[in-house]
Structure formats: structure tokens, C-alpha cells
């Protein structure tokens, strides 16, 4: 994106800014719920059959999604090893993911956290060092700027250079939509695919304050790091400005690392690639295993399971996830477009319900379930079927987002209002424990009447 759109491409990575508000809003509420997973949170916020359906659905979906992400990330490593060492693609996938699985299986979450900390430090510093090296190799900041200006490409240094308000493939309307999705999404839970991973970080923080700060600073460092990354790609553009084949410029970062860094640094560079890979694989192996163990096995299969049994179920699930990721990874080319569509479904039609479940007491599990189901059909229609039959034109993704959000609301808001609210006892317990913001007046009044909280 940076090679194509210059510094404006930074905004493609700005979706992580949901943490800006979430750190001081939904992360605080989630930490106070003490739920291990987002699936478990559903049974605290909602009650009865609807809550159980949601918990089961979320758990199953997340086990699948984690396996998919493992395959996706794993096959990327396979491709890097193929590029570097000429290995068959499956070797990089199987070898490095299996290596990670050893410490995840033996050390569990604690092992993931300790290793992740070291991997984060290695990756962060190597990205900064490599980026600076890349910029210097292109002649330094002044020469890059001068070169871009001399070839009429100076606009690449403008982060707000769009292709038009609504025109082109990178318009201002896309930017505004992205800012709304990312920033306002912080009021909800699950408005970004990253939420599910961050939820684990939020919950493993020692205090509510630690949870807020870890989310905020973690993302601040990611955004700071992305700026260096972007600068390196701009430097690459200054060195090779005429590449038109995506397969060539998509390897820009690796070209800088392996061809520009001095020989003695190349090992460190590869270590940083491994660090990023290990960090992602270990997190998703552990997260997927947690959803299965806590929300499916313990909750639905064996509620009285001992700690020892739960640990073993977690280990076996980790292994199954690993094996499943090999399967997904190797057939990824066929699956990717379908799964990106599935991810889009998660982002578009349930974005608003993910916020409503936090800010509106009256929003119930039936409304939320309806939002998911309606969105499956609506996404299919708006994204694929209707354009294929030329009923509507093929729409840009940001337009699809607004249409899906609006059409979905026309279905799940009436369903919510036509079905009973959640049980008041359950809502009061949730309110007292989590203290959500927004429209919770009837629940707050009831909590005060019961003497559970004081009126200020």
C-alpha cells in the first residue's frame, strides 16, 4: 500500500486505532467482567437461551478463525523461506509452526507471554534499525525527498493525499469510513478482528488500569513502528520507482533487509521475521485452545472438569489447531477470497451491534443473533449476488459497509424491540460489575434501588 499510495497508505494500518477509545472505554468494561473470552462475556451480558447460543457460536467461530489465521500466517512463512532458501513452501509452514507449538504445549499462556515480550522487543528494534538503514541506503531523507520531487512523485510524502472525494481507488470517503470504523469501534467489543486477541491481553493485566494502559501503549508502539516501516518502503520506491508488478514491490521489505543491510545484520533481520511469526503463531494457538477448552469443553461438555483435565484438553486442542493450520495453510490460495469475505462479514454488518451490546441496555441476545444471521444473507447479496446479476453495480468496500450497516439495522432493531429485554436481575449484576456507559438508566435505577450502588 505504501509503495502504491505513498504515506497515505499508512491509513490501511490505522484500523488498530480502535484501541484509542477502547483503552479508556470497552477495555475497562471487559477487564471488569473478568471473562476469559469474548464468548464468555456474552453469558455475562445476556441471559437464557440467547446467551448460550451466542456463547457457543462465538466459541466455535473463534476456534475456526484462529486455525485459519494460523494457516494464513504459517503459509506466509513458507513463502518467505521459499524466497530465501528455496525450500518447498510446506517446509517453512510446518517446521516453524511446530517449533512454536513445542513451547506453547509445554508452557501454556505463561510461556506465550514471556516469549512474546522478547519477540516484541526484537521485532520492534530490528524494524527501526532496518528502516533507518533502508532510508540511508536510498541516500538519506533529503535525497529521497529531492528524488521524489524531481520525478513528480512528491505527493507520496503527503499522508493526506487521496485520489478524490469519492473517485479513484483510494478516496477521502474511504478514509472517513475507516476512521469511523476504527475510532468509534472502540466503544464496542469485537468491532475489529484484533479485539479477540487483545481481549486476552486485557484480561491478563493485573489491574483495570494496567489493562487500559497496555492496550493504549501497545497500539501507540505499533503505529510508531508502522511509520518507520512506511519510511523504509518510501525509500525502496526512491530506489526502484518503476515497479508495476505487485509480486515485486510486495517483497520490498525483504529486499531492504536481505540486500541492503550489512551481512552481519542479516541474521538479526531473519530473527526479527521469526519473532513476528512466532509471536503470532503462539498467540493464536493459545487463544484458539482457550476458546475450545473454556467455552466448549468446560461449559458444554464437562462442567465439573478438574484443572488437570482442562490443561490436557488445552494441550490436545493446541495440537489439533496446529495440524488444522497445516491443512488450511496448504489450501490457502483457494480459500483466501472466501475467508476475506467471511472477515468482511464480521466487520461490516455486526459493527454497530458490537457497539450496541455495550452501550444500550435494551439490546438483547435475539437482536444480536439476528444481526449475525441477517448479515450473512445481506453480505452475500450486496457483495456478490446482486452485482453478479447486474441488479446493482459492484460497489467500493466503504459503500458496502454503510449499506450493510443500514440494512442490517432495519432487521435487528425491530427484532430487539419485539422480543423481551434481558432478565433484569442478570442486567443489574452485569451493570454493577462492569459499569458500562451509554443508555443504561433503567438498570442503574434498579441497582440503586437494591442498594448495590450509591447515587452520586
Amino acid at each position, binding site marked *: 500500500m505504501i509503495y502504491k499510495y505513498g504515506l497515505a497508505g499508512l491509513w490501511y494500518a490505522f484500523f488498530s486505532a480502535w484501541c484509542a477509545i477502547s483503552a479508556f*472505554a470497552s477495555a475497562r468494561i471487559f477487564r471488569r467482567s473478568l471473562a476469559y473470552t469474548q464468548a464468555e462475556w456474552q453469558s455475562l451480558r445476556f441471559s437464557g437461551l440467547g446467551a448460550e447460543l451466542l456463547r457457543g457460536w462465538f466459541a466455535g467461530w473463534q476456534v475456526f478463525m484462529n486455525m485459519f489465521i494460523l494457516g494464513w500466517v504459517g503459509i506466509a512463512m513458507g513463502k518467505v523461506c521459499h524466497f530465501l532458501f528455496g525450500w518447498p513452501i510446506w517446509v517453512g509452514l510446518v517446521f516453524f509452526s511446530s517449533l512454536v507449538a513445542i513451547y506453547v504445549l509445554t508452557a501454556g499462556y505463561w510461556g506465550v507471554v514471556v516469549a512474546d515480550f522478547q519477540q516484541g522487543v526484537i521485532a520492534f528494534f530490528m524494524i527501526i534499525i532496518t528502516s533507518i538503514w533502508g532510508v540511508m541506503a536510498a541516500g538519506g531523507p533529503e535525497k529521497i525527498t529531492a528524488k521524489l520531487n524531481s520525478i513528480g512523485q512528491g505527493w507520496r*510524502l503527503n499522508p493526506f493525499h487521496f485520489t478524490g472525494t469519492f473517485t479513484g481507488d483510494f478516496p477521502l470517503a474511504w478514509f472517513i469510513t475507516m*476512521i469511523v470504523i476504527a475510532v468509534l469501534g472502540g466503544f464496542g467489543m469485537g468491532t475489529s478482528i484484533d479485539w479477540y486477541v487483545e481481549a486476552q491481553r486485557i484480561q491478563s493485566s493485573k*489491574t483495570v488500569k494496567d489493562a487500559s494502559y497496555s492496550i493504549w501503549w501497545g497500539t*501507540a508502539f505499533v*503505529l510508531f513502528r508502522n511509520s*518507520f516501516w512506511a519510511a523504509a518502503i518510501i525509500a525502496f520506491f526512491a530506489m526502484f520507482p518503476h515497479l508495476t508488478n505487485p509480486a515485486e514491490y510486495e517483497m520490498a521489505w525483504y529486499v531492504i533487509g536481505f540486500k541492503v543491510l550489512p551481512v552481519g545484520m542479516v541474521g538479526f533481520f531473519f530473527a526479527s521475521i521469526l519473532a513476528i511469526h512466532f509471536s503470532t503463531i503462539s498467540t493464536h494457538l493459545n487463544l484458539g485452545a482457550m476458546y475450545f477448552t473454556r467455552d466448549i469443553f468446560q461449559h458444554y461438555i464437562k462442567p465439573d472438569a478438574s484443572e488437570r483435565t482442562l490443561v490436557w484438553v488445552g494441550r490436545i486442542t493446541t495440537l489439533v489447531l496446529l495440524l488444522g493450520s497445516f491443512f488450511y495453510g496448504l489450501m490457502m490460495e483457494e480459500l483466501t477470497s472466501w475467508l476475506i469475505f467471511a472477515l468482511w462479514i464480521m466487520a461490516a454488518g455486526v459493527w454497530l451491534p458490537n457497539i450496541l451490546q455495550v452501550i444500550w441496555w435494551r439490546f438483547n441476545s435475539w437482536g444480536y443473533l439476528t444481526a449475525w444471521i441477517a448479515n450473512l444473507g445481506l453480505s452475500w447479496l450486496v457483495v456478490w449476488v446482486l452485482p453478479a446479476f447486474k441488479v446493482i453495480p459492484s460497489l467500493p468496500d466503504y459503500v458496502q459497509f454503510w449499506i450493510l450497516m443500514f440494512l442490517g439495522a432495519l432487521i435487528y432493531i425491530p427484532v430487539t424491540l419485539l422480543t423481551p429485554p434481558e432478565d433484569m436481575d442478570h442486567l443489574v*449484576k452485569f451493570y454493577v460489575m462492569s459499569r458500562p456507559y451509554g443508555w443504561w438508566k433503567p438498570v442503574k435505577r434498579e441497582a440503586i434501588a437494591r442498594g448495590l450502588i450509591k447515587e*452520586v
Partner: protein
Amino acid sequence: MAFIKTKWTPEEAEEWTKEDIIIWVLSPISYVLISVGSALSIFLIPIGFLLLALGVIVTIVLFAIANPKLNVISGEYEKRQKEYLERLERITRWEE
């Protein structure tokens, strides 16, 4: 700083107040300034340094507002955490 409350009782801190709204506004601004400011600073573009400096200032103000309230919320909540954890176990084991 009278406009911004810095001393909180546990009951007051539990409420969502104007301080939270200010934080919700400042926080995304801080992210934008850090992102854009650092990217432009690497290319020694003067506005980049200015934006980055602004980003640092906004971040300091943000945490100066957030910290007193979060300290109180956190401290108060931890006293009740054990009871909530026990309830969570009961729900998972179908005892509630």
C-alpha cells in the same frame, strides 16, 4: 486545572464523566499525531517534528487526566474481584 477533576471518591470515579469524554477525544488525536508526525519527521520535514511534539503533549495531557480516575477505579474494583471471579466459575459450571 479546576475544569479537570483530579481527586475522586470511589463512587464518583465509577461514573462516566466529562473527563472520560475529553480522553476519548484526545486519544485518537494523539494516535494520528504520533503516526503522521513520526513518518514525516523521518524525512526531516519540519511540520512532522511539530506534529510529533504536539502528539507527545497531547499524550501527556491525556494521561494526566486519565490517571487519577483510573487509579481510584482500579483500586476499588480489585477489592471486589474475588467475588466476581467466583461467580464467573459458577456460570461456567452451570451452578448459577
